[in-house]
């Protein structure tokens, strides 16, 4: 059953408004009525969250709206995933991204925005949090069979930790198994190119970069 117009409209509005309770209630109601959970994800959730991301990018929305929309999506996703498993269908994420703020850096607002945006666009994101040691990145990459590793650094003094993380991937002989990208206030495109990794200057760009990397032939 495709998504009925009334559900489509109300659920889209709930995601865009970041109304967690309403999004959960409409999702539950739609699933009980037999609406296809994959249809809800593809026809409602992804477009609504893309719109939220666009509004954030243009300055119409700020962090609270982005976070509340992300929270609404996370709650609805749990219901939808359960329904998908119960129906025997398979839901394939766009890819798996391991994300963290590098060792020594406690600034994670930018990283959190990227996590929310990536999830909104259908990526499976493993968020390692702040002050992530190089070995935690390599371990998580292997354990989660990741496609992309995203490193964030705000401070100039923590930028070398990105290089150290890249070095460890190389030393372990797994550098070519993953796409490595970085962002944050201390990172520039030139520097990222210099050390041979991808770069985006903002969250929307990070989503596009990850999509491109998933489309690109593997190393």
């Amino acid at each position: 059953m495709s998504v009925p117009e009334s559900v489509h409209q109300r659920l889209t509005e709930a995601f865009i408004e970041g109304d967690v309770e309403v999004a959960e209630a409409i999702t539950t109601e739609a699933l009980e009525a037999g609406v296809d959970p994959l249809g809800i994800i593809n026809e409602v959730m992804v477009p609504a969250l893309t719109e939220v991301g666009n509004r954030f990018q243009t300055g119409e929305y700020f962090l609270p709206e982005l976070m509340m929309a992300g929270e609404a999506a996370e709650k609805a996703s749990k219901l939808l995933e359960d329904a998908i498993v119960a129906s025997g269908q398979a839901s394939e994420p766009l890819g798996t991204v391991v994300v963290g703020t590098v060792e020594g850096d406690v600034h994670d607002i930018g990283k959190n925005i990227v996590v929310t945006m990536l999830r909104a666009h259908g990526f499976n994101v493993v968020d390692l949090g702040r002050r992530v040691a190089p070995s935690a990145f390599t371990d998580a990459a292997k354990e989660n069979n990741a496609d992309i590793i995203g490193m964030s650094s705000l401070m100039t003094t923590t930028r070398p930790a990105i290089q150290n993380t890249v070095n460890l991937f190389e030393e372990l002989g797994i550098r070519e198994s993953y796409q490595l990208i970085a962002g944050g206030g201390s990172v520039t495109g030139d520097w990222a190119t210099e050390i041979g990794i991808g770069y985006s200057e903002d969250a929307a760009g990070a989503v596009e970069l990850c999509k491109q990397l998933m489309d690109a032939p593997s190393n």
Partner: protein
Amino acid sequence: MQSNWLVEIMKRAQSGPFIKEKDFELKLIKRIKELVKEYDIKYDANDLVPADDDMADRVYQAGLQLFVEFGAYCQSTERQILFTHDEVVDIVAQAPSEVILGMGKDAVVMRHRGVEDPVRPIVHSGPTGLPASEEFHPQILLSYAQEPLVDCLGAGSVATYMGEGIIPGTPLELLGARRDASVAREAVRMAGRPGMHINDVAVPLTCSGKMAAFDPDAGLRSCDGILVSQMVELKTDYDQLSRVAHLYNVGGITVDLMTPLIGGLGGRAEGTAVVSVADHLLGVVLYDADYHMFSLTHLTYVNNTDPLGIWIQAMVGQALSRNTPIILLNDIYVVSGAGTKELLYECAAGAVVGTVCGFNMQGAGTTGGFNRDHFSGLETRFIAEVSRASLSLTRQEASKLIPKIMKFYEDTLSEPNRGRPFNEVYDVDTVQPTAEWLDMYYSVKEDMSKLGLKFEYAPRPKA
């Protein structure tokens, strides 16, 4: 502050309500939105410096209520450190309203300033939060310290030690911190002002690194300070609290650094103003701070000279100035860089709103911190001059003046002119601004005079 207060804070950090950080943030977002509505706080793009005492008081009350309800989130324990309303009110009432910074003839008294206060602000300088190169760091610091209207110096941040990248928590961080403190000490000596207050050494990100900057001979002294930071919003950890303990031990000046984001967890201008007041109260109650560095920046542009930033500074300054005795320091953050007129126009807007609304001055955080060495002492001279020229302004006059200043730079906020590095706008041997950079300075000063600012010092030297 009672001597066992840190002990009490540690107890509460370990026994307060447990909550995941993300849940704390989501609750905070919702509550800020409710408080903005409850206290009827409204941003008006046509009145960026509101002369509305009642709204200023409501912003304060909303911020006080927010802090009482949420306290400080301790990232080390994932618990809230909570205080009662009466505790907060009592501690704020006892907070210092003046502090002696520096020593000897170079010492200055930084005071609590009122709204439209005729007392001139103390002017802090230096590349705080900005990346500097090892090569030009000494000359850059001297360029600030030698400015007669500058009262205090921040040592800034150099990301390398002898060419090697500094990693936090390593020996290089300790060596880098001591080196930067020594460079700052030498800069104030060379400027003939050996007792000038140094407000921080920014390179270390850990408490041990900050401690390494202290050395009565070649580094920081007890008349100097270090920043004790808050993580956005209303968050602390044991490393920051340990800095408070160290400052108690050595008798140093505690500088409360908060970096609220315009468009961050506070949301729009109104919510960001409310959480900024709460941030200041955290600095009073938790850090026992001597003064408070308000380093507000836009989530995207990393400045505070846009209309939202100006309004937030106006309201936060008035709210705290009217309702507390604490000492406020406004950190002017701009998108432009050295060698551009836009930088000076942005500095002027920040200096006007800060001076009129109860702040002391700090600046300038050029290029949003993105470009290495794109700063110099000349822009701080401009902040000081504009600040002095703004002392006679009312809020109504400031509210009319600032949009006129913003016309000079508002179109560049999204595509900033990052300017040039220090060595291209100063002669690095004589540490004097180039003729071109000086010419821009006097040109912008003339523009400000045409807008009605009356400077104490002669406009452009006659040829």
